[in-house]
C-alpha cells in the first residue's frame, strides 16, 4: 500500500480562511488518491476537505464558511491505491495559532536633512492589504532588518505596532538594504520578509534612492 502521507503546513493569512498542505509518501508507482478528512473538537462527525483545487496540488483550502476559530481541527490525510491505503498522523489546528500574514507593502524611505543636525532616514510602510488592522481585529507587530549592501550581517530592529521608523545612526556614503516583516501580536508567525529596498546615504549633499 502507499506510504503514509505527512501534513507539512497549515496557514491562515488573515484569520478568516486557512489552507493545509501535505507531502505524499512513496506510492510504489500505483496511481494514488488523497483524501483530507477532519473533525472538530468535541464532535464525532467527520467532514471531507471542501476544496482541493484553490490552493494547488496536495492542498486543502477552507473558505470563510468552513473556518471556525472557536475550535481545534483534527486533520488527517488518507492515501489510497489498488494496493490498499494508509493514513497520516493527526494534525491539530487552532486557526488563531497558524496566522501568518503577508509581508507589509508600500515601503518608502526618505532621507531628512534638518538644517543644523545630522540627516536621518524615515521609513514608512503599510500592513498587508488582506489584514483589516484598523480596529484591532488583527493587530500586527513589525520588525525591520538592514545591512550595508556588501555587509554580511543583518541588524534586526523590533518596532512594535508602529508603521513608521526613524533611523539616526547610518554611515554616510554607505548603500543599505532594508526589509520589513510582520506578525500577529499574540499567536501566529512572522510573514516572509518584504521585497528589498535600497538607499544610498550621501557623503555630501546628493542622495539616490534605488
Amino acid at each position, binding site marked *: 500500500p502507499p506510504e503514509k502521507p505527512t501534513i507539512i503546513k497549515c496557514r491562515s493569512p488573515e484569520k478568516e480562511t486557512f489552507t493545509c498542505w501535505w507531502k505524499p509518501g512513496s506510492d510504489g508507482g500505483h496511481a494514488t488518491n488523497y483524501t483530507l478528512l477532519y473533525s472538530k*473538537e468535541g464532535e464525532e462527525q467527520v467532514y471531507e476537505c471542501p476544496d482541493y483545487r484553490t490552493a494547488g496540488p496536495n492542498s486543502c483550502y477552507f473558505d470563510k464558511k468552513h473556518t*471556525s476559530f*472557536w475550535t*481545534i481541527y483534527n486533520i488527517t490525510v488518507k492515501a489510497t491505491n489498488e494496493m490498499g491505503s494508509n493514513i497520516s498522523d*493527526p494534525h*491539530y489546528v*487552532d486557526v488563531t495559532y497558524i496566522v501568518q500574514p503577508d509581508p507589509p507593502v508600500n515601503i518608502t524611505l526618505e532621507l531628512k536633512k534638518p538644517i543644523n543636525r545630522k540627516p536621518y532616514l524615515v521609513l514608512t510602510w503599510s500592513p498587508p492589504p488582506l489584514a483589516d488592522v484598523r*480596529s484591532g*481585529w488583527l493587530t500586527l507587530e513589525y520588525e525591520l532588518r538592514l545591512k550595508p549592501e556588501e555587509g554580511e550581517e543583518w541588524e534586526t530592529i523590533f518596532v512594535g505596532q508602529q508603521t513608521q521608523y526613524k533611523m539616526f545612526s547610518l554611515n554616510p556614503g554607505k548603500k543599505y538594504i532594508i526589509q520589513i516583516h510582520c506578525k500577529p501580536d499574540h499567536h501566529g508567525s512572522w510573514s516572509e520578509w518584504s521585497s528589498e529596498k535600497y538607499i544610498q546615504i550621501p557623503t555630501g549633499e546628493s542622495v539616490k534612492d534605488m
Partner: protein
Amino acid sequence: LPICPNGSVNCQVSLGELFDRAVKLSHYIHFLSSELFNEFDEHYGQGRHFITRAVNSCHTSSLTTPEDKEQAQQIHHEDLLNLILGMLRSWNDPLIHLASEVQRIKEAPDTILQKAVEIEEQNKRLLEGMEKIVGRIHSGEVGNEIFSQWEGLPSLQLDDEDSRLSAFYSLLHCFHRDSHKIDNYLKLLKCRLIHSNNC
C-alpha cells in the same frame, strides 16, 4: 496523547482563549456598527431628524439588560451569558435582511453594503462562539428561552423613501446600541471569570 497546537492536553480551545476571541470579535463588530451607523447618518440622515423616531424603537427593548455597573456586576454570570446569547439571536434575522435590503437603497455606497454584509457574518460568528462558551460553562443544555422577535422587515420595504430610510436608521441605531452593550458585558465577564476581576 497527541501534541495539541497550543500545548493543551485535551486538545480544546481554553475558556480563557474563547473569551479573548469573543471580546476581540465583539469589539470589532461594534467598531463596524459605529462606522456603518455614522456613514448612513452622514449619507441619508442630515436634517431629517430620524433620531426622534429611532428613540425607544428597538425590538430588543423587551429584554431587561443591565444599565449601570452595579446591575451588571450583580447579575449572575450564567444569566448575563444567556442574555448576550439572546441578544445575538434576536439580531440574527434582522441583520440578514439588513444586508440584503440595503442593497436596494438608491446609490448606497459600496462601503455601506460591504459593512452590512460583514456585520451579519461576524455576528453569526460571535453567536457560534458564545454558544461554545455557554456550552462550556452551563452544565445542562444551552437554554434557548431569551429571544426577541423582530417584525421590522415590511418597514425596510416601504415605498415612501423617507419612511424606509428612517426604518433603516432606527435599525442601525438599535444595533449600534446593542452591539455596544454586548461588547461591554463580554469585557466585564472576561475580567470576572478569567481574570477574577483584576483586568
